[in-house]
């Protein structure tokens, strides 16, 4: 009898790997833009998305996947598997977790295990990947969930934004709100942990901001994993990855591009780094 199916959502990024390699099911969030309803990573490629974001005056809105989609996904998977482990973007950043929990209750609460990752993007990708790897080793769903809960507090994301415009209009600033703005131009450095975006510091220029993200990361100590995420600034991301690899004394650092849902809230020009701290 086959074991456990792993589900995540489209805000997960897979730096250097693909979800297909691990048989991970990815449920897309949607971007509602004018009359268009775009499924993240299915109906719109990232380059198309950022191109439109720069030119279209209409503001896109993001939405969690519909309840029916989650129910369908869980039902189909439970026909083939014993159980489902479904790990999602932080409940403080999106309604996705809440929708998934409702769907699990409607389908089979005992067999669908929904986990709040308290993160998103590359670090969420690692959780899904870790779940899939454990499944390969025949771990039961409960053991997989325990492992994810152990990893979650050790995940960190630091990032800098090129512009505050998108974060402000999207309303996903959380605790960072009072920290942003101001009369002089600044580049904020933000942190995601415990499921929320926290302000870290502000510097006057992008070059200084990128350097600070690398420095802060270096000061975190030993790490099990590290990856770079960016939105529409691949060249800078490559240079940044090389700099981080040098500081961390590792051969290379994988790079992922943020999808359209996270990109809606950050805009282009995000450069961030995800870490899994050593135990």
């Amino acid at each position, binding site marked *: 009898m086959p074991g456990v199916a792993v589900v995540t959502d489209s805000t997960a990024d897979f730096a250097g790997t693909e979800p297909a390699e691990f048989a991970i099911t990815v449920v897309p969030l949607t971007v509602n833009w004018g009359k268009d309803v775009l499924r993240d990573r299915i109906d719109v490629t990232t380059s198309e998305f950022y191109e439109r974001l720069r030119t279209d005056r209409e503001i896109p809105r993001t939405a969690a996947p519909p309840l029916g989609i989650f129910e369908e996904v869980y039902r189909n998977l439970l026909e083939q598997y014993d159980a489902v482990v479904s790990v999602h973007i932080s409940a403080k950043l999106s309604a996705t977790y809440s929708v998934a929990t409702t769907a699990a209750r409607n389908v089979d609460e005992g067999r669908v295990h929904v986990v709040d990752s308290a993160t998103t993007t590359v670090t969420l990708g690692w959780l899904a990947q870790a779940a899939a790897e454990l499944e390969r080793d025949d771990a039961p769903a409960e053991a997989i969930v325990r492992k994810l809960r152990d990893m979650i507090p050790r995940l960190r994301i630091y990032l800098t934004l090129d512009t505050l415009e998108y974060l402000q209009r999207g309303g996903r600033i959380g*605790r960072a709100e009072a920290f942003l703005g101001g009369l002089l131009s600044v580049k904020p450095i933000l942190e995601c942990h415990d499921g929320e975006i*926290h*302000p870290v*510091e502000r*510097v006057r220029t992008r070059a200084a901001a990128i350097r600070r993200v690398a420095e802060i990361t270096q000061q975190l100590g030993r790490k099990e994993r590290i990856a770079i995420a960016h939105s529409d600034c691949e060249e800078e991301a490559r240079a940044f990855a090389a700099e981080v690899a040098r500081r961390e004394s590792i051969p290379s650092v994988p790079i992922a591009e943020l999808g359209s849902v996270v990109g809606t809230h950050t805009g282009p020009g995000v450069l961030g780094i995800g870490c899994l701290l050593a135990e």
Partner: protein
Amino acid sequence: MDVAPDTSARSIELVRGAELRASLAAAADWLDRHREAIDALNVFPVPDGDTGLNMSLTLRAAADEAQAADGSLEEVAAAMARGALMGARGNSGVILAELLRGIARELEGHQAVDARLLARALGVGATAAYGAVSNPVEGTILTVARRAADAALEAADGSASLIETLERAHEAARVAVAETPEQLPILKQAGVVDSGGEGLRVLLEGILLHFKGEPTGSGAVPVGMRVDFSSLHAKEDDFYGYCTEVLFQGEGLKQDAIRARLAELGTCVLAVGDSGLMKVHVHTLRPGAVLDMATEMGEVVRVKIDNMQIQRQGFEAAVAPNRRSKPDATRMLELGTSIVAVALGAGFQEIFESYGATVVRADHTMNPSVQEILDAILQTGRTDVVVLPNDPNAALAARQAAKQATGRAVVVVPTESMPRGIAAVLAASPEVSAGVNATPMAEAASRCHWIEVARAIRAARMGEVDVEKGAVFATLDGAAVAAGQSYPDLVEAALERLTNTEAEIATVFIGRDGSRAGAEEIARTIRSRLGIDVEIAVGGQPHHDYLVSVE
């Protein structure tokens, strides 16, 4: 004014509470009349001297509080000390407040002051004044206080009367003030005596006039001699960063060269040893740079690095519960750090506020009172507070306010200018403690350089720079670098001094009397010289038409 021995003096041999009250009021009047004359004793040729005002306001606060106190000597003296402390403005005001507190301490348990007690009290006051600054400098109010006290002790031991003792103290103060330019080259260059010392002399004179039954009257005394340099009184950064000691060996080590290198990195520089083995000591924000220097010159033998910031917090935490407290409303404080910033000019005030800082509004010069800073600290919504004085002259008041803010963890990051203050604010993280914030904030501030340009209201010599009346001059990080006719040229000259600096962004802050066109001209100069982004903002500062920060 010279006070000659006066045979018509009232035969006061003992001073009780009522006399102390009356003499303080008279001295406050007298000092107030000399306020402008003392303000004019400024080493910089811009009208921002405020020592007279600061000392006058401080003494007035002491006299007012004494006025409201009960009759006994002890109680009036305690009220005087309390009033001075809460009303203290500027470095000179804080030093004066400490001096008065020392005097009050010595008067505890006494019904009346005689010549001997007066002399002893002046001595304790002088010692307390030295204790108010972390790095006492001679040729300032401190020297004047000590020499007045020494003269009083000598007189009282020789059975002088109370008034004779006061006269001798005042005469010694007068001589000490006249000699300050010999002790502080910056005073000599500017052709002035020390303003804080002169303020103390005037205070003593006011008390003496009162006891001799002479009127202290009203109306300003004309501006005579010129200057101030209260910002020399304290090296506020001495408590910051890391106390770094390195013992290293090498060949042909040169003590002078090493000392000069260290002086670039920090304060309290010591280098002792010989060409083969050297021990160095420096207080710096960059202990790594000291080690780099040592390894470059030879081999490191031993290293000791202490974080003085943490040591000082431990000390303050132990002392704080005993301080006078102002009950904080039963408001819930959020964990994390708020910022209090002293700012001058509407534009700067708005900029600090736009980043969430609570602003202490300075009006003419950077001279907020201890009470104003304390009020701002207590207004903030977080458990921890970082205070940015943004001027050397506000640093002591900030520190005093920090000591008195019970129930909050307060750290002063001694920013020397508003641009440095802005750099520090931006580096602050609201969700961590003041202690954790202090070092990155101080580091960010130190990476910011600032250029001030202004028009001279009189001819002066500052350092190596001669300024003619009506000419414009520039300072870089507070030191004069050039004088001339055009602001862009001066900014360019100042930028030339900024070697070894990787500049990333510059900001031109337009002063109250500056113009946007002028700022744009300066911005063009910076862009063509450094090839970096330049932002223009409204600062609204008086005195300096433009202020430029380079980060």
